[in-house]
C-alpha cells in the first residue's frame, strides 16, 4: 500500500470552549481530488487552514506524505494554496506574484524564469505577466492565483472556494480547467466549496461536513446514491432529494411502503428489494428519500420496481431540458423530474412513476440510513 499523501487522524479544533472540528479522520492517496463540502460555518475552511498550518490544531494528527505536521510552519509543509479572494500581492506584477515564493526560498533566477514561463504557458497568462493584479479581470486573477500555486510544484494543493467570486459562466469554465489541470498534472488536491455541483463534478472523493463533524466520506457516486443520512441526502443534488414520511411494513422478501396523502387514498408502494434495517414482519415509521429523477413520467418498459400513482399537480417548472412538477405527499412538497414535453397545468392530476430501486430509507428521528 502506498503512503497516503494526506492523512488526518482524530483531529479536534477548539476556539476557547467551542469545538469547531470534531473527530476528523480523512486520508487521500496521491493523485486524488478531495472535496470538502458543507454549508457555511461547517468548519470546512478551518479544516483546510489546519492542513495548511495557518491554524493550530487542538489535538490529533496531520501527516503530509507520511511526515507529521504538528509544529511545522506553512512554508515547510510542501503545499500551495489558492484563496477565495485570490490574495494576489497588489503592488507586484503578475510575474512577480508568481515568482515571489521562489524568490523568498532563494531559488536562482534562471530556474524562476523557466518555471514562470512553463506555468504562464500552461495557464495562458503570458500576455498578462507585466500587469498588476488591479488591471486583471476576475478570471485572470484566478488563473494567476493558480499559477502562483503551480510553480511551487507541491505535494498537495489546497483550494479555498476558489471559484465563488466568479460569475456563473466563468465558474463553469474554470471548473473544467481545474479538472483538466488535475488530470494533466496528476496532482493531489484538497478543495473546499459550499457548491455541491462543484463537489460532484470535480471530486474523486467527497467529504460532507456539518457542524464540524464529518457526515460521510465517499466517491461522488456513493454520496449521491447512498447518502449516509438525511443531511447528506438533502444537501447533495439539485433540486434536492425528496424526503417523505412513510410507514414501512416488511413481509416476505419485500417491504410495503405507505405514504399518507392529504386527499384520497394513502399511496401504497412496494420495494421488492426489502430494507436491510427492517426485520421481516416488523412495522415502523421511516423517511423515504427519492431523488426527483426517480419520480418521472410512466413509460412502457418500466421495471418491476417502478410503480405508478395518480397525484395532483401543484407547480410546474419547465427548465428546457426537463420539466419539474411539484405535488404533495405525506405532508411534504415533492418534486418530480418529468420529460420536457410534459403538458400539465397546476390543479390537474397526472400519473407519477415512482422508481424505488434507487430509494434511500432513513430513521426519522436520527436521520441515519436504514438500507
Amino acid at each position: 500500500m502506498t503512503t497516503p499523501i494526506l492523512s488526518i487522524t482524530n483531529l479536534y479544533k477548539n476556539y476557547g470552549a467551542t469545538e469547531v472540528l470534531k473527530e476528523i479522520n480523512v486520508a487521500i492517496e496521491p493523485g486524488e481530488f478531495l472535496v470538502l463540502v458543507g454549508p457555511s460555518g461547517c468548519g470546512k475552511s478551518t479544516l483546510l487552514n489546519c492542513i495548511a498550518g495557518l491554524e493550530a490544531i487542538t489535538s490529533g494528527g496531520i501527516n503530509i506524505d507520511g511526515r507529521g505536521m504538528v509544529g511545522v510552519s506553512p512554508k515547510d509543509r510542501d503545499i500551495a494554496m489558492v484563496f477565495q479572494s485570490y490574495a494576489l500581492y497588489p503592488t507586484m506584477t503578475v510575474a512577480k506574484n508568481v515568482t515571489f515564493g521562489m524568490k523568498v526560498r532563494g531559488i536562482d533566477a534562471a530556474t524562476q524564469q523557466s518555471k514562470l514561463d512553463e506555468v504562464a504557458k500552461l495557464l495562458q497568462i503570458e500576455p498578462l505577466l507585466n500587469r498588476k493584479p488591479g488591471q486583471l479581470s476576475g478570471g485572470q486573477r484566478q488563473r494567476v492565483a493558480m499559477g502562483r500555486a503551480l510553480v511551487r510544484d507541491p505535494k498537495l494543493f489546497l483550494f479555498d472556494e476558489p471559484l465563488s467570486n466568479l460569475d456563473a459562466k466563468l465558474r463553469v469554465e474554470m471548473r473544467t480547467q481545474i479538472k483538466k489541470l488535475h488530470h494533466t498534472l496528476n496532482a493531489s488536491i484538497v478543495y473546499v466549496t459550499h457548491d455541491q455541483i462543484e463537489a460532484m463534478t470535480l471530486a474523486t472523493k467527497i467529504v460532507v461536513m456539518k457542524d464540524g463533524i464529518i457526515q460521510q466520506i465517499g466517491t461522488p457516486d456513493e454520496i449521491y446514491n447512498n447518502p449516509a443520512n438525511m443531511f447528506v441526502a438533502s444537501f447533495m443534488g439539485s433540486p434536492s432529494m425528496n424526503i417523505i414520511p412513510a410507514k414501512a411494513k416488511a413481509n416476505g422478501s419485500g417491504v410495503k411502503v405507505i405514504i399518507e396523502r392529504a386527499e384520497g387514498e394513502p399511496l401504497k408502494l412496494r420495494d421488492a428489494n426489502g430494507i436491510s434495517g427492517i426485520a421481516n414482519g416488523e412495522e415502523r415509521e421511516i423517511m423515504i428519500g427519492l431523488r426527483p429523477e426517480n419520480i418521472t413520467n410512466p413509460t412502457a418498459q418500466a421495471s418491476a420496481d417502478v410503480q405508478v400513482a395518480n397525484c395532483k399537480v401543484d407547480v410546474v417548472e419547465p427548465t428546457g431540458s426537463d420539466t419539474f412538477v411539484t405535488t404533495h405527499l405525506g405532508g411534504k412538497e415533492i418534486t418530480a423530474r418529468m420529460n420536457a414535453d410534459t403538458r400539465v397545468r397546476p390543479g390537474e392530476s397526472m400519473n407519477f412513476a415512482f422508481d424505488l430501486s434507487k430509494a434511500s430509507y432513513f430513521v426519522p428521528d436520527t436521520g441515519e440510513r436504514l438500507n
Partner: protein
Amino acid sequence: MTDATYIDQQANPHRFKNALLRAGLYAMLVLFALYYLMPLFVMVVTSLKSLDEIRTGSLLGLPREIDVSAWGTAWSGACTGIQCEGLQPYFWNSVLIAVPAVFISTVLGAFNGYVISQWRFKGSNIIFALMLFGCFVPFQVVILPMAILLGKMGIAGSITGLIFVHVIYGLGFTTLFFRNYYISIPVELVKAALIDGAGFFRIFWSVFLPLSAPIVVVTVIWQFTQIWNDFLFGVSFSQAGTQPITVALNNIVNSTTGVKEYNVDMAAAIIAALPTLLVYVVAGKYFIRGLTAGSVKG
C-alpha cells in the same frame, strides 16, 4: 420639428436655473477664500513695507516701495532676547527635531498598525485601545512626568529629548492611521505570503510597505505639521540653543524693546509657517487621496 429642438426647449429653464445656482456657489466659495486669505495677504504686504510706511499707510494697502530688508532681518538679524541671530539657527533646530521625529514615528506607526491589524494576538485590541487613548491625552498632563523622565534619561533640554517626546506623542496617531489602513487588507494576503515562505518582517517589507504610499503621505503631513507647529513641548523641554522655531518666533515678537518692527515680525511668522505650507502644496492632493484610500478597495 426635430426631437433635438424639442429637448433643447425643455432643458432651457433647468439649464438657466443650474447656471444660476452654480454662479452662487462660486461666489460663495470665492468670498470664503478671500476671507481666509486676508490674514496671509496682510502678513505678506506688511512684511514688504518699510516701518515708516506701516505707520502711515493703511493695513490693507499695497506697499508703495517693495522693501525686503525685513525678511533678511527676520532670518539672520532679529533679536530673541539677548542674542540677535534671527530665526536661522532655530529653523535648523526645528528641522533637526521634525525630520527624525516624523521618520521614526511613521515607521513605528506602520509597524504597530501592521501587527495590530494583521497579527491578532490575545489583548491586541486592548493595546490598540490604549494607544488610541494616548491620542486624547492633553499635552499639559504629560509635561511634568515627561520632564522628570527626560531628566532621568539624561536628554533633558536636548534635541534628542524633543525628538523622543514627539515620537512618543505621535505614536498613537500614526498607529491609528496605519491600523485603519491595513485593516481593510484581507488577512488572506498574509496567509498567502506565509505559504510562499515569507516571514513576519518579509511580509511587512515586501507586501505591506509597498501598499502604504497614500497612508505614509497622510501620516508624514500630519506628523510634520504637528511637530513643526508645536509650541508647548518646544518651550517646556528646550533650553537656549535647542529651541524650535515656534519658540524663537514668540521670543522675537515679544522681546523687542523700543519700536515694534511689524514688518520683521510678519516676515518671521511667514518663515516659520513656510515649511508646513510647502508640505501641503506639494503633497496636498495625496493627502486627500490617502484619507479616502481606506474606503476604496484597490
